[in-house]
């Protein structure tokens, strides 16, 4: 690969090519370091946890050692319970998130374009989001039942807000020259939205989605805790009912791992979609 590159810039001096090689190596090292450093700080956290839990300053009830929690997770995984719960929770969280993402972007886009839609939804969103939806649990159960539909609805209702506001804020910041440019080349209003305004607002919209994702996961788990049923939240709730600290912390760790993976995936998508953007350029 280096050879090919040297040929590409065959006008470049040999020294440049050599410098290139050493820079490439440095970059690779750097990437390895970054990945490694992430794991490093997590390791430090876990070790600190273990030491603190064993120090005698806290009881195993308040903070069980990490090793005990890991054992518990392992047992749950072998028993299959972990996977069943994981699947249920992920299904609810991700379905809810997907609906919130699509619906939120669509609603934001329509609100930005149509004054009537904006007039209608603007106050409703401002009232609806800070509303403590837990209080409506009985009605939600009565209307939407006890199972996935009601839980997913709660997830959607909580996760859609950051998406809508981010879409609105992003669209408000689009440079007018870009819109003009699109119009000039004959884009219809619809095309302008899809091909100019939304891509230009994409960085902000993605930020909204990045915020919505952990919210979706949290709400899915809280809904499970409040309404019972399977899932990581349900498992954590029953563990907590029986003062089973290991079970509670096993749940916390499992959720953290799952959430971490989802957030990383989302960040990767962001990097892919925003190759053109400042933020993906090399940092100096």
């Amino acid at each position, binding site marked *: 690969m280096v050879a090919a590159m040297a040929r590409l810039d065959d006008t470049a001096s040999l020294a440049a090519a050599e410098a290139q090689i050493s820079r490439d190596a440095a970059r690779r090292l750097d990437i390895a370091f970054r990945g490694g450093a992430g794991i490093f700080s997590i390791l430090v956290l876990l070790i600190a946890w273990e030491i603190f839990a064993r120090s005698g300053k806290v009881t195993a009830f308040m903070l069980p050692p990490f090793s005990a929690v890991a054992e518990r997770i392992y047992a749950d995984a072998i028993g299959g319970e972990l996977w069943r719960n994981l699947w249920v929770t992920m299904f609810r969280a991700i379905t809810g998130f997907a609906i919130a993402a699509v619906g939120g972007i669509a609603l934001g886009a329509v609100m930005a374009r149509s004054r009537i839609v904006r007039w209608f939804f603007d106050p409703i969103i401002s009232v609806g989001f800070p509303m403590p939806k837990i209080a409506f649990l009985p009605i939600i159960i009565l209307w939407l039942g006890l199972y996935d539909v009601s839980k997913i609805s709660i997830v959607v209702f909580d996760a859609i807000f950051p998406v809508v506001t981010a879409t609105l804020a992003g669209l408000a910041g689009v*440079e007018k*020259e*870009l819109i*003009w*440019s*699109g*119009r*000039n*080349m*004959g*884009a219809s209003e619809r*095309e302008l939205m899809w*091909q*100019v305004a939304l*891509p*230009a607002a*994409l960085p902000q919209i993605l930020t909204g989605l990045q915020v919505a994702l952990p919210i979706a996961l949290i709400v899915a788990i809280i809904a499970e805790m409040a309404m019972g049923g399977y899932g990581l939240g349900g498992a954590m709730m029953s563990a907590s009912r029986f003062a089973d600290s290991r079970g509670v912390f096993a749940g916390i760790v499992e959720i953290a791992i799952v959430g971490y993976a989802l957030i990383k995936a989302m960040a990767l998508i962001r990097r892919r979609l*925003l*190759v*053109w*953007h*400042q933020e993906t*350029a090399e940092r100096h």
Partner: protein
Amino acid sequence: MDGQSQIIIERVNHTYRPPRGRPVLALSDVSLDVRPREFLALLGPSGCGKSTLLYLVGGFLPTETGRIVVKGKPVTAPGPDRGIVFQHFALFPWKSVRANILYGLERQRMPRAERERRAQAFIDLVGLSGFEDSYPSQLSGGMKQRTAIARTLAFDPDILLMDEPFGALDAQTRALMQTELLNIWKRTPKTVIFVTHDVQEAVYLAERVAVMSARPGRIKAIIETKFDDRDPGLTRSKEFVEKVDELWNLVREEAIKAQSIKAQENQEKKPSS
């Protein structure tokens, strides 16, 4: 005024009203006719309203007073019949050079093979082959400008509105682009309004040059600059040099006026503030 004009600008004013601060009268009572297939250059001091005038003809800003008629129809909205090269390029930062150029062609529902071919031809024309897949943020200033030119030329509008399109190009590339533009203009029936700061360029390219006054912009003079032949030696001919000097003097007056208007405004402002 007459059925012959391609673009009629009639007693147009434009005032910018920033959300805060006082309104700015950018254009005052501007009237200008552009004939079909004409190449008209627009000269004027910085801030006199040249870009504003192009935006109005492009249909990006609403005509508040007066009227602008293009091909017999009053301008109400932008359309692909009027292609514009923006002073600040306005490239889509999320699209590569090629995708930026393809965009207008896609909007015209041109068949895929045809538009790929056409986009490549214009990439080659502006000397950007090898950078088809670069994003605007990865281009130099001149390369961005050339992408913007290629993008607008590619979708082949009847009317070209160009706002200092060669401002960021080196002398040689600029000369090349001038030639290409003239070729295209001669080959296909296009009406061009061309904003430039380079008086020589204006005289060399245009058939008529309109000189605008300092803000608020007015059309101060319109000078015929049609030369019979456009040979390389032209720019050294006496005729040519004389036209350049004439225009240069007109522009200079305005620029000086602009400076003194400002100085005066300043004077007026001082005691009150």
